[in-house]
């Protein structure tokens, strides 16, 4: 190992011998690294928000259902536990939040229009911690309690139905005996969501009010649990699984909403491809720099070999030179990414392309997210691929015959 300081010293000095070329290459690496990390931060922010919005709409992190509910989401497949039993099982389990719901398909009718929606009978207090609805931004008011007699719908749905706060609508769904359950409600609030389609899809009732309308006693169709991190739901999943028996199915959010789950997996793959593509562009510059650096000092390499350096040491020196170049470039790129992402974390207003963003479930405010693991990924990929790219010129240098190299002209 005593040879390492010698190789590092030589590599460092040779790197700065042609400082102009080194600075140009460093700039390229820094900008490349910055572009990788900045784009990752934007993409992560967008996906995080899509998923977090998506999870807060319906799935939470983990859910339990009657095993038949996922195929037939009707009131005839309820959770086989009473509300009291659920309170007993999960009341003190330490989840960030949990809530039991009635969730069934329904039709809402105004005096002018009707629309198919998802009816959510909720406990407003329990869901406040994770729902996508900002209770304080509701036109009118949100529900107060499980027995609130009002109905809350999205502002967009109200537009479609040509109704509004204070007006009455009729909600209709299928009861437990396959007969029609319906009832008139007064609209007490219109909610706004980041994604317009959410405003068109959901209507909220108090849980007890929904149970009364559907004539199902205190039955519910779904219980939702929220943990600390949607990327790591296993602790919540295990805790819920341990508390229930085979009469219910426990599902992670990735299983409940396969679209969102697939986005998350695809995003990780996309990040890697993005990093590799940028590196490939960089690698041409890197290899060219190293080839030039080797070519212009053939005689000196011959001298090093003649003085007793082994070919492997020459190879190591060139590789170290490349690693130093990439290391410094990455460090600068990381810093640049940090100082450019941090001020944007409060949000980038993309309302000018809001419709486009909404098409794939994203909101018009983008909150970039700089994750350490993404920075590490970009750095590791560049260093590993840079190492491989530098092997060719380094190998070439180490294969020189000392006497031919020393006597080479020009």
């Amino acid at each position, binding site marked *: 190992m*005593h*040879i390492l*300081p*010698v190789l590092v*010293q*030589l590599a460092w*000095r*040779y790197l700065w*011998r042609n400082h102009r070329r080194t600075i140009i290459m460093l700039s390229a690496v820094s900008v490349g690294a910055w572009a990788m990390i900045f784009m990752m931060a934007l993409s992560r922010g967008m996906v995080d928000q899509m998923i977090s919005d998506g999870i807060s709409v319906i799935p939470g992190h983990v859910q339990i259902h009657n095993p038949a509910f996922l195929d037939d989401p009707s009131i005839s497949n309820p959770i086989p536990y009473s509300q009291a039993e659920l309170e007993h099982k999960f009341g003190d389990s330490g989840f960030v939040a949990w809530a039991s719901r009635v969730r069934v398909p329904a039709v809402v009718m105004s005096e002018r229009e009707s629309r198919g929606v998802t009816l959510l009978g909720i406990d407003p207090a329990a869901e406040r911690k994770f729902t996508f609805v900002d209770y304080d931004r509701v036109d009118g008011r949100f529900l107060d309690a499980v027995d609130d007699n009002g109905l809350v719908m999205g502002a967009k749905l109200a537009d479609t139905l040509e109704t509004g706060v204070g007006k009455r609508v009729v909600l209709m769904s299928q009861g437990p005996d396959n007969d029609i359950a319906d009832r008139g409600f007064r609209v007490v609030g219109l909610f706004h969501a980041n994604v317009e389609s959410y405003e068109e899809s959901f209507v909220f009732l108090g849980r007890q009010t929904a149970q009364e309308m559907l004539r199902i006693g205190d039955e519910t169709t779904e219980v939702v649990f929220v943990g600390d991190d949607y990327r790591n739901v296993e602790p919540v999943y295990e805790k819920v699984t341990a508390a229930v028996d085979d009469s219910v199915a426990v599902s992670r959010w990735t299983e409940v909403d396969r679209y969102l789950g697939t986005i998350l997996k695809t995003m990780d793959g996309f990040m890697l491809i993005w990093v590799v593509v940028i590196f490939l562009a960089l690698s041409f510059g890197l290899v060219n720099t190293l080839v030039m650096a080797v070519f212009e000092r053939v*005689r*000196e390499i011959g*001298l*090093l*070999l*003649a*003085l*007793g*350096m*082994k*070919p*492997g*040491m020459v190879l190591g020196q060139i590789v170290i030179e490349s690693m130093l170049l990439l290391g410094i470039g990455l460090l600068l790129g990381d810093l640049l990414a940090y100082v450019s992402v941090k001020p944007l974390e409060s949000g980038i207003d993309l309302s000018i392309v809001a419709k486009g963003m909404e098409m794939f479930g994203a909101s018009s405010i983008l909150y970039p997210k700089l994750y350490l693991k993404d920075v590490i990924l970009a750095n590791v990929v560049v260093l590993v691929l840079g190492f491989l790219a530098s092997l060719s010129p380094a190998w070439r240098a180490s294969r020189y*015959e*000392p*006497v031919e190299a*020393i006597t080479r002209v020009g």
Partner: protein
Amino acid sequence: MTAVRCVDICKTYRQGDVDIKALDHLSIEVDKGEFVCLMSPSGGGKTTLLNAIGGLDIPDSGEVWVAGQRIDQMSKGELADLRLASIGFVFQAYNLIPVLTARENVEFVMQVQGVPAAERREKSLAILGEVGLDGLEDRRPAEMSGGQQQRVAVARAIVSRPALVLADEPTANLDSHTSSGLMDLFTELNENHHTTFIIATHDRRVMRYAKRLVRMLDGRIVEDIEQHAA
């Protein structure tokens, strides 16, 4: 004891369409502690012979033995180890590593050998003083004259007390006073440490220091005489 033995070695270079015999069935034996001067007109084969003895160039045929080991069949790594441990080189030109200072150039071989930093520093400063480069230890080659560079190269070749020193025109670019000082240093190493010297030179002043003169012509030894050194 034999330090160097070359047996019937041949080396032919191709220049354009012409084959040039740099070494032509040459044999020579040099004992440990000898001080040998190789003389020849340009193209006589001196540098090729030094390169073959130093393992920098492999002859087309014949055998080269250094310190009892046959080196013409060694791998690149083995040759590098041999050069590092036992041979000091002074090349005709392009002698120094341009990105290192004079002291770092002198320390370089010791650094690769794994000599501790304090010892390296002490030895390198001492030898730079001996070759008359006191105060220039932190200069880079580009900041030194040709003669000063040559003296740094000589200092590097002898600082780790190798058993064999191969020098190709070591006094080229040196004035007569510095040349004499350098040759006195070589003589001192030769006599007190039994370092073997093989020096290729045109310089008659250098020849006076040699105990053995080997005259070469067209890749062959045409005269091999012993003399009383100056």
